[in-house]
């Protein structure tokens, strides 16, 4: 039986290969889009487990908070460590749009405790203590900047900002690895010096001792600064990230709808192939019925062939995506750190192929099974 299905599938080799290729290309595209969707979800998930909260100006992130808030937030019960940060938004001088790097000026001392999900090259934070212009760069970001700009550890690089007026010169001291593979971290006291010591913080990270204390800390911090010159808004890392994603617009919905269109297209191609196959084999099916094959048997044979073809397409398309989008291998220029095929995206791709195979085979199979033997035999091509 399996042999028959296999043999049948390859009777018109050209047609089968073309169908498999068509299904493969489209499934590859679908896998790419699924990767995009799941990378957003994973980013949120990894943020959801974090014990960090963010305190920003109540009006929006573009308003600064006074440096003096550092000690006040640190004094709130259950807060273990506080770090003042400024999003500097660094770009390579002269090639502003070439690489996306999350360049952040941060208080140096709390770094190790705060960024516990990052692995810093041993000794690099100590080196930063002795070097005002020192910076640590994510390993992946360095690799890309090395390719494009010849960046190396030990080199001094000039970066410019879309937000601040002054350029900065950073001495690259070492690398780190962590969820955000586009990060460049440098000392906030250096930025202060460059800007003439205004004592301004963009946002604070605060670490809370236990997850159940997070809501209390958020409330207490905001209550402390209520009715002051600079009111604050404190929220979890996940909520903070969600608000950025929300600003990206309805891209996720758009991607989902395009995904549906892609699935519809695969279905058209596969169903067309199977309809052609069915037409060619009308007489043959009738002969098989005469030989004792039941209606159901013929339908099963036919649908199996259809499923086989789409699964072969999936093997090429989804398999190609799995190979290409390996973890850490592909990250869309640093914009999508989690851009890789997870077991669930792979499974979704395969399920779509299975579904397409079933549906594409079903209509011709039912028609073929229903046709009376006499009709089938009588037909002349």
């Amino acid at each position: 039986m399996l042999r028959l299905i296999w043999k049948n599938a390859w009777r018109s080799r050209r047609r089968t290969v073309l169908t498999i290729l068509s299904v493969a290309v489209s499934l590859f595209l679908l896998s790419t889009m699924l990767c995009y969707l799941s990378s957003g979800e994973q980013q949120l998930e990894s943020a959801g487990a974090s014990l960090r909260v963010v305190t920003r100006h109540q009006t929006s992130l573009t308003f600064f908070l006074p440096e003096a808030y550092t000690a006040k937030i640190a004094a709130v019960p259950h807060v273990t460590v506080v770090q003042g940060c400024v999003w500097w938004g660094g770009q390579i001088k002269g090639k502003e749009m070439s690489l996306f790097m999350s360049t952040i000026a941060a208080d140096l001392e709390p770094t190790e405790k705060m960024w516990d999900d990052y692995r810093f090259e041993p000794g690099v934070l100590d080196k930063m203590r002795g070097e005002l212009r020192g910076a640590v760069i994510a390993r992946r970001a360095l690799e890309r900047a090395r390719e494009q700009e010849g960046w190396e550890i030990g080199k001094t690089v000039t970066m410019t900002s879309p937000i601040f007026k002054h350029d900065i010169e950073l001495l690259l001291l070492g690398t780190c690895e962590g969820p955000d593979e586009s990060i460049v971290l440098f000392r906030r006291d250096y930025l202060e010096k460059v800007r003439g010591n205004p004592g301004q913080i963009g946002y604070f990270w605060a670490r809370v001792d236990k997850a159940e204390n997070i809501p209390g800390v958020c409330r207490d911090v905001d209550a402390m600064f209520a009715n002051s010159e600079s009111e604050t808004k404190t929220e979890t890392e996940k909520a903070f990230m969600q608000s950025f994603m929300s600003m990206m617009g309805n891209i996720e919905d758009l991607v989902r709808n395009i995904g549906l269109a892609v699935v519809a297209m695969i279905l058209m191609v596969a169903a067309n192939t199977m309809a052609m196959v069915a037409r060619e084999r009308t007489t043959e099916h009738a002969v098989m019925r005469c030989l004792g094959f039941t209606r159901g048997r013929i339908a099963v044979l036919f649908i199996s062939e259809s499923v086989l073809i789409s699964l072969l397409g999936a093997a090429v398309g989804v398999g190609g995506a799995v190979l290409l989008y390996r973890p850490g291998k592909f990250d869309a220029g640093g914009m999508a750190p989690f851009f890789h095929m997870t077991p669930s995206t792979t499974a979704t791709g395969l399920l779509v192929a299975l579904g397409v195979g079933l549906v594409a085979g079903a209509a011709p199979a039912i028609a073929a099974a229903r046709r009376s033997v006499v009709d089938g035999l009588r037909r002349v091509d």
Partner: protein
Amino acid sequence: MGLILKYNIRNLFVRRVSTLMTLAGVAMVVAVFLVLMALAQGILSIGETTGDPLQAIILQKGTNAETSSGIPDEAADEAENVGMVERDPNGPIVARDLFIVIMLPRPDGGAPANLVVRGVTGRAFDIRPEVKVDGGKRPRGSDIIVGRPLSKRFAHLNVGDKVHFGKRDWNVIGHFDADGQAWESEVWVDLPEIQADANRKNTVSSLFVRLNRPEDLEALNEQLEKSANTKQLKAMTVRDYFKGQTGTAQMLQVVGGFITFLLSLGAGLGAMNTMYAAVGNRAREIGTLRALGFGRFTILVSFLFESALIGLAGGALGCLIALPVNGLQTGTMNWVSFTETAFSFRITPAMLGVGLGIGGLVGAVGGFLPALAAARRPILASLRAT
């Protein structure tokens, strides 16, 4: 030739199912292409329509966005009075704006997002005649006006609502339209009020001016350079300023191109299947045509025509599927100011033409090898085929 083309068209109807499915596949490709390009076009058109060639924006040097620009009153006073700026009986037509970013929740309770609050004077309306407020209202005191598209994207921005940002509650007294220009994504507030509220007294972010002639831009910059007060300022055209903020559109075009290419490949392979079957089933007919004296080239062209016709029809269907998104409101992040820009999908006639072209091309490319096979087959072999 006319006869044989008629024969091709009739054949499309004979194998209805196959034709329809191939056509629908191509339609999907073209629809996806158009939707993505309409999105990109919507963003681009903000940069293309905002301001006019005579309008210039003056910012602090070293910044490329109003977000990070600060101009003290003395510098603004001096810059206003340089000669190149258009005047009316009340003096130079200069809008002093303060650009503030605030965060507001979504109407459905979703994660909040950033948007622009612009502190304006009466001059803002003189220089931007495209801004039309319901009932001609102006922001005064705590009364503010809101770009119409924003009212659906953020909570508390309907007329009559009270909205809290900065240090107090503000009253939304009206919505305004601006012919799709960037202002529609903004909340406009009386300048002195927001200066006080945001602790930005005596400074503005930008000056919008109208030049007497386009070539005056250079002269304006030279003039600014001359005085100690205005040395820190630079002017550029409003068009250039907003064009610099449409980076998302380029990204969409690249992504859209990639998706369209892969999908076209998939649909093209499907079309190839269809055409190989068509050629195979009609072997005897092809032989007959050849015996009647139709040349190989005619056969090639006729089958290419048949295939391209399926593609074109698919392209047309794709256009029909995509057309309803034209004008649909949506929003995206402006990567320069980190605020949300509202815009609508925009399908242009040129895009529809490209969509049809893609459909025809997918059909023609997919049909090429099968048509070649049909043309090449010897007459006798064709006639003998069962």
